[in-house]
């Protein structure tokens, strides 16, 4: 029971510090479970974090469940996961409440106008992130490209390639989700199957 309480508090602490999404939890976990306590070796931790990123769902939830399970079984994994999400649940509920309450004041209208444009920019930057993980062989190096254009020459890194299969799947996904009423979870499922089949037969 004490272990579970400790796990709950520890992961609640991590959850409250995750600014900008769950990815930032990985270095915090590394510090806590590799450098400070030595619960994992660096290699074990590397396997854990790639497992958390490969399996579906949120990376941070996956790592919390995994570490909690290794420390104290099912109870430990539940304690760590619930601890992780509790601060977000409370803070997000408060933020939504205040947004709703002051929605009609001119200040909030202005803030929303600006932040919505910034959020749209974030959606487009996410498009480039996902393209860099699939269609292109590496993340698109925008700062370097901008620099080379300013110097009057346009160049890409040597190992920057376009993956053919991923490009076809991506183009099909664009077409199907724009032109048909396929649900997106269905498209995701189908493309996972297609990817797996191609991986087996090629």
């Amino acid at each position: 029971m004490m272990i579970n309480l400790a796990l709950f508090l520890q992961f609640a602490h991590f959850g409250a510090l995750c600014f900008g999404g769950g990815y930032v939890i990985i270095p915090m976990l590394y510090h806590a479970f590799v450098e400070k306590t030595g619960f994992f070796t660096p290699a074990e931790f590397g396997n854990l974090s790639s497992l958390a990123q490969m399996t579906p769902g949120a990376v941070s939830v996956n790592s919390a469940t995994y570490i909690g399970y290794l420390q104290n079984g099912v109870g430990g994994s539940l304690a760590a996961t619930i601890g992780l999400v509790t601060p977000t649940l409370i803070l997000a509920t408060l933020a939504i409440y205040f947004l709703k309450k002051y929605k009609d004041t001119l200040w909030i209208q202005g803030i929303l106008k600006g932040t919505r444009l910034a959020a749209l920019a974030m959606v487009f930057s996410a498009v480039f992130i996902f393209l860099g993980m699939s269609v292109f062989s590496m993340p698109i190096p925008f700062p370097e490209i901008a620099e080379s254009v300013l110097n009057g020459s346009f160049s890409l890194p040597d190992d920057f390639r376009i993956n053919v299969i991923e490009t076809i799947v991506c183009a099909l996904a664009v077409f199907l989700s724009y032109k048909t009423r396929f649900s997106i979870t269905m498209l995701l499922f189908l493309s996972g199957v297609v990817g797996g089949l191609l991986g087996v037969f090629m």
Partner: protein
Amino acid sequence: MKELPAGRSLFLLFSTFFKIALFVVGGGLAMLPVIEDVFVRKYKLLSSEDMLDMIVITQTVPGLIAVNSAVFVGNKVAGFLGALVALIGVLIPSVVIIMIIAAFFPYLDSQNPLVQAVFGGIRACISGVFIVTACRLFSRVIHNPIDFVLSFLFLTGILCNVSPALIILCAMPIGCLYVFILRKKQATLTPDSEKKEA
């Protein structure tokens, strides 16, 4: 916005977030196209502006994008109970899958070629549906050249590795300035209707 019977909307929240956690690989933002598909386009329970407000909250409130999004959508659709139901839906698949892996295959090799190939396909699909979602949001939010220029400037900042939280912080006063100037202009153009409102 439409209204659904309470039980129906709670079930919809649970099942959608359950499916999202089961099929979406690649972290929190990747779930955006599914949320847009189900809650904005199919059931019309949210607006495009709500989607963007959700992104702002996920980037400013500390915490996981997945949890923030579930709480936001749940709250909008069915209040605090909705938030809890969506949150449980988004957690269960991860927790169950990871527990099974930790219990039975603690040494599962995540570099397994088949696993890599399946998730490679899913990631390619996410890029595709994300492009469509981004374009839909674009057509709903960009009303004039000033909107476009501002959004483009923010995008340039993000691509050059400025932190998203800093971009949102800068966007707030810019948006206020924008709205106040717009209002002043409208006031000088149509003083009569302003008076009627007051």
